[in-house]
C-alpha cells in the first residue's frame, strides 16, 4: 500500500531526472596476444643463460596446470616447476581486484559436483568448501541466482517464462524429460571421460537435434543456444548434440549451487597458489621444447629446464608452435571471447525482480553479467563490479578473432553499454570504468564429431614423455575437466617416475 503510494508520488512528482553520463575510463588488459603471436611467427628468442635440471615441468598455470601441481605436491613430490606465460597464474580462472571488490576475469563458478566428480570433491574438502558432507553456505551462490530480462522486465530464473505459451511450457517439460533419459544412460558424466561412449548424437548439432525431436518453442531454442554460447562459446548450430546434451544431463537436477566467490574461480586459483607458489614461475613464457635423448629441454626466457617429463597444460594448439614432431591439432576449434569488468559508482535502476548473481538479457548477442558483490555479506552495497561476458559465437572463430583485435576499446565499450542499456537505461550514469580482456582462444569448442576426433585421441595419448593436460582434451573447457586432465597426467608422471 505504502509502496504504490510512494511510487505514484515519485512518478508524479519527480518526472524527468537529471541525466549526465559519467566519463568512463579503462582499456584493454594485457591479454598475451603479443607473446602468443611471437610464438606463431617463430620470432627468435634470446639464448638460455642457465640450465636447471628438474624431473617435471608443467607448462601453463591455468586450472589444468595448477591441478597437476596440486596432485604432485599432495603426493609428496616436490621436484617440479610450473611455468606460466602471464604475470599472474590462473588462466581462465584468473581474477582481479579494485577498491570495491575482487572480481573474475573469466570462469566464475563451479556447479556443485556430483558423486562422480571425486577430485573436485576432494579439492573442495581440502579448501573447506565441503565440510562433513555439507557445502559451506557462504560459497553457495546466494539467492536470487539468476534472472532474465525479457519483454521489458527482469524475471526470476533464466528459463524464459514471461509470456510463455502452453506450447512453450510443453516443449520445456518434454525437453527436461528427454534430458532425464540421457542422464539415466550414465554416459553424460563429469569428468566426461568416465561415461562418454561413441554416439550418434555427436554426428549432428544440438540445434539439428532439437529440430529432429520436433521442439518448436522459440524460447527453448533460445535457451539451448544460450547454454551453448555460455559454456562452449559456440552457437547451438555449431555445437555437437552430444556436448549440448552433456551440458544439461551431466548436472544433478536438484543441485543447490553453483559454488561461487566474488572473484569467481579466481578464488580456487588463489587457494591453490597459496599451496604451490614456491613451484610457480610467472612471466615465464615457454618458447621452445626440444628433445635431447630421453630428456626434454624446455626454454623459457633465459632459463633452460632439462626435464624427464613435461606436462603441457597450456591450450594444446600452442604445442606445435613450440616443438617439432608433436601431433597435429589442426582440427581443434577454439572460441574467441571478450570479458569486461565494469566499475559501477551506483547501481542502475531496473524493472522487475531484484538483481541476481547472473543477469541475462534475452536476445542479446552477449551473455549478460555477473555481479561481484553478490556474494558479499554486507546488507548495504552502493558500488559494485560487474563482469560482462561475450562469446563471439556468430560467424567463424578466425574472423571473430580478427575483429576482436581490430576494434578498439571505444568500440567494445560502446557495444557493451548499448547491450546493457536495453535493460538498464541509466547505465551510462553509473559506470566509471570498463576494463576489457580479449581472449582469442578462450575455450575449446565441441563441434560435431569432436568426441571421436583423431586430434582428441592423439592429445590424450601424448607424445613420448610430453603429455597434454588442458581441458581441450575433453573437447570443452570447464573447471572439472581441466582439473581432471591435470590430475590424470600428474598421476601418470608419478607412475613413470616411480618406475
Amino acid at each position: 500500500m505504502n509502496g504504490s503510494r510512494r511510487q505514484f508520488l515519485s512518478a508524479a512528482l519527480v518526472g524527468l531526472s537529471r541525466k549526465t553520463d559519467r566519463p568512463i575510463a579503462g582499456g584493454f588488459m594485457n591479454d598475451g596476444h603479443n607473446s602468443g603471436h611471437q610464438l606463431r611467427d617463430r620470432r627468435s628468442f634470446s639464448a638460455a643463460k642457465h640450465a636447471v635440471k628438474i624431473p617435471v615441468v608443467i607448462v601453463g598455470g591455468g586450472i589444468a596446470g595448477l591441478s597437476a601441481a596440486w596432485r604432485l605436491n599432495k603426493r609428496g613430490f616436490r621436484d617440479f616447476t610450473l611455468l606460466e606465460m602471464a604475470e599472474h597464474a590462473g588462466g581462465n580462472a584468473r581474477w582481479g581486484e579494485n577498491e570495491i571488490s575482487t572480481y573474475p576475469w573469466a570462469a566464475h563458478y563451479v556447479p556443485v559436483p556430483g558423486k562422480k566428480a571425486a577430485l573436485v570433491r576432494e579439492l573442495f574438502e581440502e579448501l573447506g568448501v565441503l565440510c562433513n558432507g555439507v557445502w559451506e553456505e557462504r560459497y553457495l551462490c546466494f539467492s536470487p541466482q539468476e534472472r532474465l530480462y525479457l519483454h521489458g522486465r527482469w524475471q526470476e530464473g533464466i528459463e524464459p517464462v514471461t509470456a510463455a505459451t502452453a506450447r512453450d511450457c510443453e516443449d520445456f517439460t518434454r525437453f527436461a524429460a528427454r534430458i532425464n533419459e540421457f542422464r539415466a544412460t550414465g554416459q553424460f558424466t563429469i569428468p566426461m571421460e568416465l561415461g562418454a561412449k561413441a554416439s550418434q548424437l555427436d554426428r549432428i548439432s544440438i540445434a539439428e537435434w532439437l529440430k529432429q525431436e520436433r521442439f518448436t518453442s522459440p524460447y527453448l531454442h533460445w535457451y539451448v543456444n544460450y547454454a551453448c554460447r555460455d559454456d562452449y562459446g559456440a552457437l547451438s548450430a555449431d555445437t555437437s548434440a552430444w556436448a549440448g546434451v552433456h551440458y544439461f544431463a551431466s548436472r544433478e537436477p536438484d543441485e543447490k549451487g553453483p559454488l561461487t566467490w566474488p572473484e569467481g574461480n579466481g578464488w580456487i586459483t588463489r587457494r591453490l597458489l597459496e599451496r604451490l607458489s614456491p613451484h610457480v614461475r610467472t612471466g615465464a613464457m615457454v618458447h621452445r621444447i626440444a628433445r635431447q635423448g630421453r630428456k626434454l629441454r624446455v626454454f623459457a626466457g633465459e632459463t633452460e629446464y632439462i626435464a624427464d617429463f613435461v606436462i603441457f597444460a597450456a591450450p594444446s594448439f600452442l604445442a606445435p608452435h613450440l616443438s617439432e614432431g608433436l601431433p597435429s591439432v589442426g582440427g581443434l576449434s577454439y572460441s574467441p571471447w571478450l570479458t569486461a569488468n565494469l566499475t559501477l559508482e551506483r547501481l542502475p535502476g531496473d524493472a522487475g525482480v531484484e538483481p541476481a548473481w547472473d543477469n541475462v538479457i534475452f536476445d542479446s548477442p552477449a551473455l549478460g553479467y555477473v555481479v561481484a558483490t553478490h556474494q558479499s555479506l554486507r546488507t548495504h552495497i552502493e558500488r559494485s563490479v560487474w563482469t560482462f561476458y561475450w562469446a563471439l559465437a556468430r560467424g567463424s572463430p578466425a574472423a571473430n578473432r580478427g575483429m576482436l583485435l581490430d576494434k578498439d576499446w571505444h568500440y567494445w565499450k560502446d557495444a557493451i553499454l548499448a547491450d546493457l542499456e536495453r535493460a538498464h537505461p541509466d547505465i551510462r550514469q553509473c559506470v566509471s570504468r570498463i576494463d576489457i580482456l580479449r581472449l582469442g582462444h578462450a575455450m575449446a569448442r565441441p563441434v560435431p564429431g569432436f568426441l571421436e576426433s583423431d586430434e582428441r585421441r592423439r592429445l590424450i595419448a601424448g607424445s613420448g614423455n610430453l603429455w597434454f593436460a588442458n581441458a581441450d582434451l575433453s573437447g570443452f573447457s570447464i573447471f572439472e575437466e581441466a582439473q581432471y586432465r591435470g590430475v590424470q597426467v600428474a598421476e601418470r608422471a608419478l607412475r613413470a617416475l616411480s618406475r
Partner: protein
Amino acid sequence: MPVVLFISVALIAACGLIYELVAGTLASYLLGDSVFQFSTVIGSYLFAMGVGSYLSRYVTRGLVARFISIELLVGMVGGFSSAALFLAFAYTQGFRLILYVVVAVIGVLVGLEIPLLMRILKSRLQFRELVAHVLTFDYLGALAASLLFPILLVPKLGMVRSALLFGIVNAGVALWSTFLFRDQLGGRSLLRAACVAVLALLSTGMAASEKITQAADNSLYADEVIFSRNTRYQRIVLTKWKDDVRLFLSSHLQFSSRDEYRYHEALVHPGLAAIPGARRVLVLGGGDGLAVREILKYPDVQSITLVDLDPEMTRLFSTHPYLVTLNQRSLTNARVHIMNSDAFPWLQQTEDVYDFVVVDFPDPTNYSLGKLYTTAFYRLLARHLSVQGLAVVQSTSPLFARQSYWCIVETLKHAGFKTHPYHLYVPSFGEWGFVLAGLYPYDPPVSVPGGLRYLSAALVPQLFQFPVDMLPVDAEPNRLNNQVLVRYYEHDWREITH
C-alpha cells in the same frame, strides 16, 4: 496577425485547463475520493471563472496592460499551484482551504482573460467572427491540454513541473502580448521587465522542483513530520501526533512512543534477566537506543556494544532532545560502545564473545536484509555467544507473517540453537514475535528489574504460550542460497493487504 492572436487564445485556454487538472488530480491523490474531489474542484473553478467574467466589466481602462498583468498573475499562481499544494499538504493542517482558495483565485483570473481579450480584439474583427474564432481556439486549447496532461505531462514531467511549465507559457504569452499589442500599450518596458521577472521566478522553480519534491515526500506520513533526513542508508522520519512520536525508517514503522516500552521490555528482559551475572551484551540494529535503555537496568552488565549501520541514526538518538528523553540518554552512557558497521561483516571480523545478544534488524523485506536471517548468520552468531549465553531475535509477527516467523525459528534450529519462541501484543504493531536462542534449555527469570511498565516475572512464562492461530507451520530454514524467508514474508503480507 489574427492567427497569431488565436494561438495565444489556445495557449491561455490550455494553461487554464492544466491548472484545473493539477488541482483535481492532487486533491484526488492526497485526499482520496476522486469523484468528490474532481466534481468540487471543477465546479468551484468554473464558478470562479464566472465571477472573473463578471468582474471584467469593471475593467475599463488600459485593457492591454491589465490583460498582461492578469496573464502574469495566472502564470505565477497557476505555475506554483502544484508545488504549493503539495507543501500545504505536507506542512499545514489546512490543505482543503488552501486548495479551494488556489482554485478560486486561478478561476477568477482565468475568467477575466477571455472577456478582456475579446474586448481588445473587438476593433480588429467583426463581432460574429470574433466570438466564433476566440471560442473555437479556446476549446481547441482545452482539448490539447486535456490530452497532453495524462499522456505526456504527468508521466514525463510530473505534477510540480507540469504546472510550472504552463506558468511559463502564461508568462510567455504575456511577454508576447507586449509586442502584439504594442500600439495599444503604454509603459511597455515596465511590463516587459515584469514579464521577465516572472519568467525567471518560474524557471527557478523548475530547477528547484527536485527539492520541492523531497520536501513534499513528507506527505506520506499521516502525522506531523518533526524530523526527516535522507541518509546514505535510509530515510529517517519522525512524526508526532499529540504525545505519540513515531519513527519510520524508509517508510517502515519502527516504534510508537506510546507503546514501544512493551516491545523493548519484552525484547530484552525474558532473555537477559534469565542469565545471572551477564557482563557483556551485544545489540545488532537498534540504533534508537531503546533496547540499550532496558539493558542499562542491569548493574552487572559492564559493557554494551551497539552495532548499527547508520551513523546518522545513532547520532540522532544521542542528541535529539525529545529522543534522548525517550531512550534516557542510553547511547551516551559510558558503558555503551557504538559501532557504525554492517552487522554481518562486523560479526565476522570480531573475536569477542557475549553473554546476551539482541538481534533487532528490520523485517526481511528484501534479499539484502534477508542475509541477516540465514543459517550462515546464526551460525556465526553462535560462535560469539558464551556457553550460558542467549540471543534474542526480532522475528516479525507470528500472526500476520506466520510462516516467516516459524521460518526464523526453523533457521535458528538448523544453526544449532535451542529455540524458545514467544510473542506479545504491541498496539501499534499488532501481535509481535521474538525468539530466544541458546545452547541449553531455558528457564524463565525469577525476577525482572523494578519499574517496568509492561513485564513482570509472573508474565514472562505466559509469553511463550501460542494461541491456535499462531502455532507453528512448516517452513524451510532460510539460507543464503535460497532466501526463502523473503519469499515467505512477501507472501504473508500480500495475504494480509489484499
